[in-house]
């Protein structure tokens, strides 16, 4: 009898876990479908790059995106600076594609919203993404935070805030925290003016790496941007 009870308990636990895993997979698939429903967009953006060794003013411009991985920032004659292509600034790039294993790891609160936390592991061994952790707001079906560990570019954490374009899972504000390597040039080459102040040191661990804040002012979604647009040289 005792053995039978243990057996039933184990079966019940497995069944509950199985149901939770299935639920988590369904939740992830629904989110991914929603994210991938946006094939392209153009958006007016304001970007603040906060990296200890970079002193860059706020950059305004038009951001062009086409699924799966094309992105271009046009600054009407100015320079555009974007993180390297393999870490894209969009949610669709940080959510693994193809077959994945989804594990629900619990619940959390972001702001005052309750979210479910999912771990997503791509089954494709060649994928640049090793693991993505997603904090999903089940009610609006949007990702409020992602933490993606990549093969070549360290960990990228992204905080997302939604307002107008929740239906497309397109954020109004995104904060990206990135791992960055050190930057150094020999003083003999640059001949620095010695009295210039050193880059400010931050106490926030995330900011010691690098933060990019993007505010999206207006989206034009699924208008059909051609691939050739992304290889065109920028107008001077």
């Amino acid at each position, binding site marked *: 009898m005792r053995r039978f009870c243990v057996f039933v308990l184990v079966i019940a636990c497995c069944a509950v876990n199985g149901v939770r895993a299935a639920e988590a997979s369904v939740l992830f698939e629904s989110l991914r479908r929603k994210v991938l429903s946006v094939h392209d967009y153009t958006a007016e953006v304001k970007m603040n790059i906060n990296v200890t*060794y*970079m*002193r*860059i*003013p706020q950059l305004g411009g038009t951001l062009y995106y086409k699924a799966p991985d094309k992105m*271009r*920032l046009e*600054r009407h*004659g*100015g*320079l*555009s*600076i*974007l*993180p*390297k*292509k393999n870490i894209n600034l969009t949610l669709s790039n940080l959510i693994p594609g193809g077959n994945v294993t989804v594990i629900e790891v619990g619940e959390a609160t972001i702001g005052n919203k309750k979210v479910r936390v999912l771990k997503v592991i791509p089954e494709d061994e060649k994928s640049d993404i090793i693991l993505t952790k997603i904090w999903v707001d089940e009610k609006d079906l949007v990702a409020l935070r992602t933490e993606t560990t990549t093969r070549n570019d360290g960990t990228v954490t992204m905080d997302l805030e939604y307002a107008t374009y929740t239906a497309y899972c397109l954020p109004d504000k995104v904060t990206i925290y990135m791992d*960055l*390597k050190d*930057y*150094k*040039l*020999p*003083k*003999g*080459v*640059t*001949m*620095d*003016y*010695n*009295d*210039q*102040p*050193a*880059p400010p040191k931050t106490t926030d661990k995330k900011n010691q790496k690098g933060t990019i804040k993007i505010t999206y002012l207006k989206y034009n979604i699924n208008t059909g941007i051609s691939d050739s647009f992304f290889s065109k040289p*920028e107008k*001077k």
Partner: protein
Amino acid sequence: MIQLLRIELYKIFKRPRTYISFGIVTAITTVIQVAMLSDGKSFLGFALQGINEQFDIHGNILNGYLVAYIILQSLLIHIPLLVALVAGDMLAGEANLGTLRLLLTRPVSRSQLVLVKFFASFLYTVLLIIWLAVVALFLSLLLFGKGDMINLKSDAFVMLLQGDVMWRYAAAFLFAILAMTTIAAMSLLLSAFADNSIGPIISTMGIVVVLTILSNLELPLFNLIKPYLFTTHMIGWKGFFDDPVPYAAIARSSIILVVYTVVFISATIVYFNKKDIRS
């Protein structure tokens, strides 16, 4: 005084040597511009290696503002030589030609003569820097176009929006005039000691080269004297291309350069007043 200044300026601009300086500035600037036109992208690729590993930068990076900055950086040693060519000749040249004694028979004091010669050297320096601005900045803008400017420091990457650059160049050129005036004052002092102009010109260059090396060597021994060397402060113009601009440091550098200039001119006046002039 004005008449005397006119005569000094006439003497400066009558000599072919004066125009050699303007020619040298044009030649060096043009060589760098041609090199940048033909191979600037690979040069930039090397300089931006550390940044390009992590960021994609698009747009007209190699624009006129950046090229002008590269030119100014390369001319750091050359411009003092060109200033010394004229300022070092002011008193020593007269002594060499045997006209100094004759000049001092005119009803002007020796102090007035030194001040006029210094002011004439200053006006030459101003014209040389204005010419540098024309060929280095405006010609580069014509050849390479406008754009946001990047400034690579040893520990930072600074980006300046194109609308925010022109005033920085104006301020940088004004600072360069101040720095080169210090060189002119030093050259004039050395000129007072000599009876031919080669000595002061070479001595000025020697001092500038040695002190520039000391200013740039990262050794604890030299760190003690660096803040007091005028060559450390001569590159203060670069401060205008930082963000935020280190105004306090630039003001300190300006004061130090002014003090050096006043000391050099005062020393010239004191020495020249006591000098036994035989030629």
